[in-house]
């Protein structure tokens, strides 16, 4: 077992464990913090796969922006205490059943499928440096890139629309 594999396993374990903890912890703040850890471990995976730029962006976007948004909301609503009503048994059962089902089904399919044989391709070319990514993003993927701005614009307008107080018309 190579070092890399060990690192992978450790990271994977952290990822999964924190993901679980995110879901199971009663306090939303704790959940949020576990989730941050989870994101960090995923960033670790990215680094492992040599995608440094992505790892950084990931941390900035998720841990830096999205999670902060979550935390702000939690605090805004003063949700640090557990308000959640007791979940009915049927809900839990349903959740567990569907979790098991989807997990088993997907994993079974992948196990059943033909294993990938032989070496993985190694072109040796640089394909994931910032330079390359930038080129692809702004050449080939220029349109989606621009379009993503529309997406964000819509989200922005929407958020404003949903939050801003209306001027009462006379």
């Amino acid at each position, binding site marked *: 077992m190579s070092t890399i594999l060990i690192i992978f396993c450790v990271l994977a374990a952290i990822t999964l464990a924190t993901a679980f903890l995110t879901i199971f912890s009663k306090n939303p703040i704790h959940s949020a913090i576990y989730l941050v850890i989870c994101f960090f471990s995923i960033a670790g995976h990215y680094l492992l796969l040599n995608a440094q730029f992505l790892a950084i962006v990931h941390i900035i976007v998720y841990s830096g922006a999205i999670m902060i948004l979550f935390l702000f909301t939690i605090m805004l609503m003063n949700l640090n205490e557990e308000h959640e009503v007791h979940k009915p048994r049927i809900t839990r059962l349903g959740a567990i059943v569907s979790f098991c089902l989807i997990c088993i089904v997907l994993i079974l*399919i992948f196990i*059943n*499928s033909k294993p990938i044989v032989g070496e993985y391709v190694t072109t040796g070319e640089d394909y994931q440096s910032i330079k390359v990514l930038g080129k692809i993003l702004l050449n080939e993927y*220029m349109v*989606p890139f621009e*379009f993503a701005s*529309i997406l964000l614009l*819509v989200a922005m307008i929407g958020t404003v*629309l*949903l939050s801003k107080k209306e001027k009462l018309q006379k």
Partner: protein
Amino acid sequence: MNTLIAIIGLGVLCLLFEIFNLRKAIVPITIIGLLGVLGLTISEFNSTESYYNNMIVVSKFSSTFSSLFIVLTIFLVALGHNFYENHQSKISDYIAIKIFLLAGAVAMVSFGNLAMFFLGIEVLSIALYILAASDRMNLKSNEAGMKYFLMGSFASGIILFGICLIYGAMGSFDVTEISELSQSAELPIWFPIGIVLVTIGMLFKVAAVPFHFWAPDVYEGSPALTTALMSTLAKVVAMATLYKLLSVMNADISESFKIIVVVISMASMTVGNIMALRQTNVKRMLAFSGVSHAGFMLMTLLSLSTSAGSLLYYASAYSLSGIAAFSVILYVCKNRDNEDIVNFHGLGKTNPLLAAILTAALLSMAGIPIFAGFFAKLVLFNQTIQAGYLALVIVAVVNSIISVGYYFKLILAMYTKEPNEERKGTPVIIYAVAVISIVLNIVLGLFPSLVLDLLA
């Protein structure tokens, strides 16, 4: 491509109008703009071109469907004039969101790359989440937005996972490459799973059974105009995209997959129609009716290579009658907190014109001749029998019969019950939209070749 750019430009223009305090002009300008865009799209009709590394592919398919979307948006924007009377300060936002939504829709039918597809569907979805929740003081609207958002992002996750697996199998997001690869070598199993997951995500968007549960709740809770948008534009867009997705990426889908489609189609029709029978809320009823229409439209997936024309026709017929119906609903339920069928009592006496329009719209949905809905079903049946699925057609026929039950419930309410209160005011725009859309519907019914031959 030009269409897309023009639409986005128009959206931005809307926002600018707000800044320059030209709120009154927004709706008319937008409509004129959209008409211009429509002309632009039609002028590009015969060109098949791909833009920017095959990100956007303009073809007959995309331009016809885009035109349909634009027409629908024109109607929806026009209806907005009346609907947002009391929300003047936000009108530009509403309109702009709708325009961007249209942009997403156009992107979805003209994508050449899965990235565009994904972004398009997300623009559409996010716009819809916002619109659903836009009546923010209303708990129902909140609930609708929340439900739609949660389930929608769940579905987005599934779509994303599917895209990811496709990418894993093919190493590319470009549909032409994917389709070339899919025919050649032995594929990793990731590819079909990816396709299936994307399909399931899209089935959610078109509200097919068993992924339809959100639809009635969301339709009911959302502001009526949003419901109109969802049940006409959004559904048609999702269906067209699903069709395009499957037809572009793999020429022939497997037999067992077809069986799945058949089963889902049957289930959608049956569940949708049966559930609609006992609804008293008109929007909810139309939601279930929409579920069943989704089931009908899914029949086109059984003969992918030939059925684009029928899908276009069905979509046009369905959405035009939907617009007509919703404009009447908007009129009737304005200033009321629900859309209960009681509100429609005696409409035949108080407002015969609108009652007639609603009747015509419902008859079209039920598939009664000379309305376009009839031919839509007919060509669909024709195609499906040709593909060898007689049983499906028979189920569809039985469902058409059931559907008459609830469509007529509404018609009966309009004509046989006594009106409970007078409605005042004659909003010209609503009349215009209703009349134009139903006339278009009937014209389609009288001259089906107009549309059927476009994609033949």
